[in-house]
């Protein structure tokens, strides 16, 4: 029996490790040359959604299983420090290169798990309500891979879409972001300085010194000396194509536009801002970070109201603790917090398309409305839903009906296993 996991981002890593631990021969397919997805390829350097929302100081982990294990491994490897509170939320700042190395190491400790990089999904072979195989390609070499259960952690519901499973996409997607580190900054980038930087960009756009697009920039001090991280939320290129995660021309335009804006921004900072005289762009991400794309239509669709009231479900397999964080403009998030900071259960049904017993969808493409997805899309929650989907797929591959209670037990038992 074999479980195939399509997509090696945070959800896919968690799913593949869980399926392998549960005894399934597991194959994890990834299009890039490293695991981690947005956390490595797009240089997202903070993990959100790992901790409960609370007023008391101190971060309280929300997910017992693989997410907690990964945090410990990252911290031990120097890939993360202690969580920090930003506004009302606790987040874990990470070093993307170490995230990739830690993911390799974790995957390598699972004897049942093999990882294939540089592998793109191009087809799904379906017989009735069952997926029999997927077709993949690596630089022109095609291969057919059979499996008994499948997990779609592609982020774009690619496998589900190719299998003909109903999916949906919002007419107005959350904005993508170009994330890059700058080095050589001689400045303490505290809260006041970050605010002044934001204000200086407004002036520079008014005087015509900088294009409007730079108003999507947000700065954060890095872990290394002289390092600053810039997250540049991207509007559509002026006169260019609107963002579309399935259109190569639009994606190309977003990548080029992101780099172009980043270069203009970096030149401005170097020229105009004290402390940035010797600064430089230290790296580009492998791709623009995508917050929202295609979503699967599952047996249950999580709604905004579920998130805001902290809904409970009998078939809960994970939970969401992040506020609804809509990024529909590039100028910053619009946040809606759940009543009393309550966590919302994620039911197993939200990971299962109707009528397909051997397919599970986890990560940002699970079954949720556009608004609910704005809370569920974050990496901490992707890790948790990925783990649940991995255990569920292993159960389905063995011929059983996945039970939420068994999945919850498996996640609890996972906590603090050595890697």
């Amino acid at each position, binding site marked *: 029996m074999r479980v195939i996991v399509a997509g090696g981002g945070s959800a896919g890593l968690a799913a593949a490790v869980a399926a392998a631990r549960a005894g399934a021969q597991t194959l994890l397919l990834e299009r890039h040359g490293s695991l981690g997805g947005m956390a490595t390829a797009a240089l997202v350097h903070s993990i959100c959604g790992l901790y409960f929302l609370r*007023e008391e100081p101190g971060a309280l982990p929300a997910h017992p299983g693989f997410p907690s294990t990964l945090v410990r491994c990252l911290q031990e490897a120097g890939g993360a420090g202690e969580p920090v509170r*930003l*506004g*009302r*939320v606790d987040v874990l700042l990470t070093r993307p290169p170490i995230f990739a190395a830690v993911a390799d190491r974790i995957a390598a400790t699972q004897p049942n798990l093999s990882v294939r990089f540089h592998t793109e999904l191009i087809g799904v072979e379906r017989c009735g309500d069952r997926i029999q195989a997927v077709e993949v390609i690596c630089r022109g070499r095609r291969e057919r891979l059979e499996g008994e259960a499948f997990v779609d952690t592609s982020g774009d519901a690619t496998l589900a879409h190719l299998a003909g499973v109903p999916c949906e996409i919002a007419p107005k997607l959350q904005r993508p972001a170009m994330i890059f580190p700058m080095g050589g900054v001689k400045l303490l980038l505290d*809260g*006041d300085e*970050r*605010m*002044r930087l*934001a*204000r*200086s*960009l*407004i*002036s520079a756009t*008014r005087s015509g010194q900088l294009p409007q697009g730079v*108003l999507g*920039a*947000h*700065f954060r001090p890095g872990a290394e000396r002289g390092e600053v991280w810039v997250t540049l939320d991207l509007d559509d290129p002026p006169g260019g194509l609107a963002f579309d995660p399935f259109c190569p021309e639009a994606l190309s335009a977003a990548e080029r536009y992101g780099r172009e804006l980043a270069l203009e921004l970096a030149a401005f900072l170097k020229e105009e801002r004290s402390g940035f005289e010797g600064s430089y762009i230290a790296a580009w991400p492998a791709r623009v970070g995508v917050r929202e794309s295609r979503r699967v239509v599952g047996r249950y669709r999580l709604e905004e109201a579920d998130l805001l009231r902290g809904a409970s479900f009998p078939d809960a397999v994970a939970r969401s603790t992040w*506020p609804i964080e809509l990024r529909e*403009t590039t*100028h*910053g*998030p*619009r*946040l*809606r*917090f759940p009543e009393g900071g309550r966590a919302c259960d994620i039911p197993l049904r939200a990971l299962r398309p109707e009528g397909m017993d051997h397919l599970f969808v986890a990560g940002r493409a699970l079954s949720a409305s556009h608004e609910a997805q704005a809370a569920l899309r974050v990496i901490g929650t992707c890790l948790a839903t990925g783990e649940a989907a991995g255990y569920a797929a292993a159960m389905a591959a063995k011929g059983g009906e996945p039970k939420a209670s068994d999945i919850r037990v498996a996640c609890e038992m996972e906590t603090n296993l050595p890697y």
Partner: protein
Amino acid sequence: MFQAIPDQQTLEAQLADLIRERLLDLPCDFGAETNLYEAGLDSMGIMHLLLAIEDRFGILLPEADVSQKNFCTLANLGRLLRNRLVAE
């Protein structure tokens, strides 16, 4: 046409509405002295807030006025904004 500058309390209420509409759900009893950062405002929201204030009140607060202290409560932000409106 001459337009009266709103009093401090009105400005605070208008700022609260603006923040609710564009950035963040604030509880209806959110006080003028309650900490905005503890309510969820963070540095990611500052660009949004500066532009929203400009949009609503026609004032772009100068860089020297932009600080965490000045933005931490509706009272502080209201005072800052009122002084600007009076000066202009």
